[in-house]
């Protein structure tokens, strides 16, 4: 992003870059940068906190008063992610029937996902399948996790994007199952460590790696910080 800032600046536009990874702006040297030690994915710091967001913007735009650059300033307040404190959600009881438990779990979460989609008016599900198709997709991942070849099972698209649909579906459903706006990565850790589908994706990642799938197809199935290998590696 620092490089892009310089390209725009060279075209005659004054730029101010927010930064989330300080070393990257140190390396790429944009003309003006405000480093914000905030959760990745939340460059303005706090959702639904207009006053805080405004304070970040005020600090950023104040850098336009600097007479020369490059300028790199740290925002005085830091916010950490909450991946160590997973959400506590009560998952609706599912009627398993003949379904894999993870698929039944996902089916049970569909009403919660719909409530979130209605409440917020947006979703990050839909890279490969629509939300209504996520339970079936979880069933396909479960077959891979349980030993079938990933190419034989035949996912409906890029495995990485399919896994993102599953995770995003769960995280968005969780927004309706908790009273507060989650801290960053709280829903992520809940999904990975406390749901049947999270376990399925984790085991799928290991299985696809062992089956020799391309790096892109297994490595990005979960955030790099959520890879739990069987030997603890």
């Amino acid at each position: 992003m620092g490089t892009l800032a310089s390209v725009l600046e060279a075209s005659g536009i004054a730029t101010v870059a927010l930064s989330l990874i300080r070393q990257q702006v140190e390396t790429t040297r944009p003309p003006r940068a405000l480093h914000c030690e905030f959760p990745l994915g939340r460059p303005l710091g706090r959702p639904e906190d207009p006053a805080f967001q405004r304070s970040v913007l005020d600090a950023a735009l104040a850098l336009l008063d600097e007479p020369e650059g490059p300028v790199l300033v740290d925002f005085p307040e830091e916010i950490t992610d909450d991946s160590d404190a997973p959400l506590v959600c009560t998952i609706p009881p599912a009627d398993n029937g003949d379904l894999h438990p993870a698929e039944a779990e996902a089916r049970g979460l569909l009403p919660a996902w719909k409530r979130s989609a209605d409440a917020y008016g947006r979703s990050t599900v839909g890279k490969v399948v629509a939300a209504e198709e996520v339970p079936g997709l979880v069933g396909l991942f479960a077959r891979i996790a349980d030993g079938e070849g990933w190419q034989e099972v035949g996912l409906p698209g890029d495995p990485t994007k399919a896994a993102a649909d599953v995770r995003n579906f769960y995280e968005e459903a969780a927004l309706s199952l908790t009273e507060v706006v989650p801290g960053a990565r709280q829903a992520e850790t809940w999904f990975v460590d406390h749901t049947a589908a999270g376990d399925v994706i984790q085991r799928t990642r290991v299985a696809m790696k062992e089956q020799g799938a391309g790096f892109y197809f297994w490595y990005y199935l979960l955030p790099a910080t959520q890879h739990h290998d069987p030997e603890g590696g």
Partner: protein
Amino acid sequence: MGDDRIRSELADLAGYAFDEVPWTSPRPLSESRVAIVTTAGLRVGGQPDWNPGDQSFTVLPGDRKDLVLSHYSPNFDRTGWVVDPNVVLPIDRLDEMAAEGVIGSVADVHISFMGAQIDHTLETIRLDTGPAAARALLDDGVDVVLLTPV
């Protein structure tokens, strides 16, 4: 914590810096037209998902509706965006600042690229799509750009 690990893994990542950092002296902020350029990998509904290595950009429409965060990387939080897009794309805050007269106006054109690029030299962005994005912003009369990452 997750972000600490990601940050430490990316600490030594290569990046491209110009030999001489460019500098444009801004107009007074209260007279400036302000746009946002994000690297969050936003699309407008119905457009194809971002793929790794894609150095193109998307022009975000003036009505700001139907935006989809479709960055390929799983390594950052998305729940903040779902709850409040201003945590990534603070357009409502810019509207408030324009109404207060702090900034001159809010652009009709905002732009998204996708960060976490594989080619750290960003050759396409430097030589092609970056200047093209600047042209789209200049055509809208933009004076100041706020860049936001994820």
